[in-house]
């Protein structure tokens, strides 16, 4: 528990490719990151981007990065946001993600900062015909984490899985805003955001599905489930739809629940301690998001992170080697 707020994740990513971005700039070039996956390129290994925030810029830092997935490419990306100190920092970043025709992209975002950090992330995603995206935004640590995700489905036959998991405790504040814009016909989008709040944590979810007049045959769904584990934690949810087409299938909804005492007693009666029983219940709650992760490696990594976070262990991702961290 003691070390859980500090994090350093800059060590080499053994056997796999890794890019380190320090305070918004690439270590070797000193420029903001632009990642280009070329036309037809099929990346076999998962690429890890480590977004590290140091205490070099104590006040506000603005940064931007661009990820471009060209036609017919496929890639799996893990983006880890960390800070290697505990000073109070504010980061405002913009990520532009361009997914061209028939590209197939898997993205896992891992947000792991400390209780003094304020991090505002705007993610603007533009998708073209025939492309598919399977993305999870996972928020584990951070003082205030504000995610604004805008997706433009600017082509036909696009599939977009835009899911999220947030585990917040102490005085964490997390806000997720998703704007899913269906601009063309025959696209499919799904949002599933699962939130667990404990202690005095506060979560906000604001999800919009917008279907323009021409976007017929749209299928778009949105669900936000909240598990409220303490009397002083809060979860707010604002699911909404704006539909201007007449031949669509859309739904949205939110649920709020707390500990299921019947399940807890059943588990305890089998000798599972109350601590483990609550943990199993939270894992079960998170499981639906994990099931939606298409890539097996990413799913395993995320499961590991969720379990460690729930156990209150330092939020190290196994993919980041902290033992030989740079200082």
């Amino acid at each position, binding site marked *: 528990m003691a070390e859980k707020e500090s994090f350093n994740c800059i060590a080499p990513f053994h056997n796999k490719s890794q890019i380190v971005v320090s305070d918004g700039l690439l270590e070797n070039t000193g420029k903001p990151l632009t990642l280009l996956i070329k036309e037809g390129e099929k990346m076999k290994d998962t690429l890890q981007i480590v977004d590290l925030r140091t205490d070099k810029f104590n006040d506000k830092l603005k940064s931007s990065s661009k990820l471009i997935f060209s036609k017919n490419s496929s890639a799996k990306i893990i983006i880890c946001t960390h800070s290697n100190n505990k000073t109070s920092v504010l980061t405002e970043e913009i990520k532009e993600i361009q997914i061209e025709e028939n590209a197939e992209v898997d993205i896992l975002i891992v947000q792991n900062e400390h209780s003094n950090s304020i991090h505002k992330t705007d993610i603007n995603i533009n998708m073209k015909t025939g492309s598919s995206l399977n993305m999870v935004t996972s928020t584990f640590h951070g003082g205030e984490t504000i995610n604004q995700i805008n997706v433009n489905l600017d082509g036909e036959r696009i599939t977009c899985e835009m899911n999220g998991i947030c585990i917040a405790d102490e005085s964490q504040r997390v806000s997720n805003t998703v704007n899913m814009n269906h601009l063309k016909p025959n696209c499919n989008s799904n949002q599933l955001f699962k939130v667990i709040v404990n202690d005095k944590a506060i979560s906000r979810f604001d999800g919009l599905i917008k279907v323009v007049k021409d976007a017929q045959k749209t299928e778009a769904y949105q669900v936000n489930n909240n598990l409220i584990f303490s009397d002083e934690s809060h979860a707010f949810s604002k699911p909404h739809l704006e539909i201007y087409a007449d031949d669509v299938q859309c739904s949205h909804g939110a649920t709020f629940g707390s500990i299921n*005492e*019947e*399940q807890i*007693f*059943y*588990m*305890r*009666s*089998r*000798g*599972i*301690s*109350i601590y*483990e029983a609550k943990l*199993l*219940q939270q*894992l*079960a*709650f998170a*499981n*639906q998001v994990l099931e939606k992760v298409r890539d097996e490696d990413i799913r395993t990594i995320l499961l590991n992170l969720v379990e460690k976070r729930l156990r209150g262990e330092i939020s190290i991702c196994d993919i980041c080697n902290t033992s030989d961290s740079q200082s």
Partner: protein
Amino acid sequence: MLKIKDLYATIDGKEILKGINLTINEGEVHAIMGPNGAGKSTLSAVIAGKDGYQVTHGEVFLDNKNVLEMSPEERSWAGIFLSFQYPVEIPGVSNVNFMKAAINEHRKQENLPPISAAEFLKMMRKKMAVVKMDNSFSSRGVNVGFSGGEKKRNEIFQLAMLEPRLSILDETDSGLDVDALRIVANGVNTLRSPKNSFIVITHYQRLLDYIVPDFVHVLSNGKIVKTAGKELATEIEKKGYDWIINQ
């Protein structure tokens, strides 16, 4: 082994148990019968440690340990097992993960390391065979989408895995067809030993044809009003409870 002495318990201020006395020795099977609302399920809930019940008087000891001071998980570690009348569904937790967590917690109490994957798998297979459970059950969510019979078989499977000293079967026969009843009863019979004991709570003699008790108790209005051998169940089946209660 189990000693219940002058036990009184209330729920929401209403007195349900009004002075239960019961002693169970190693290897014995005790049937508890009685009309609806007599307090049968309350008794099992109080022994297992369910929230919401207040013990106002009396004591429960298992192997000279004070059960009423223990948490539900400590009671399980001490060897108490309750087969639920209505087993709880836990979506998102697979049977295999559920049982592994339970087994490992039991092992932790004995300072044993977590069970190896191979050993656990072997154990699962062996114990599932006791109640003729298909292997496909292990990856499914705990009791999720199980039929009534499958749920009860899952209870007995868990019993077989945990090898408790004292098992309480709370209306295990309710909602079972004859075939499922036979499978469940055979499962229990194979698990009987001179070391472990059972409390079988039931409304009907039917189950007791398969799981033959050493003693039959009649619980009425929060008290045990009659105790006899297995023949009492047959008599109740014929004559009902009134002749006992009105005695």
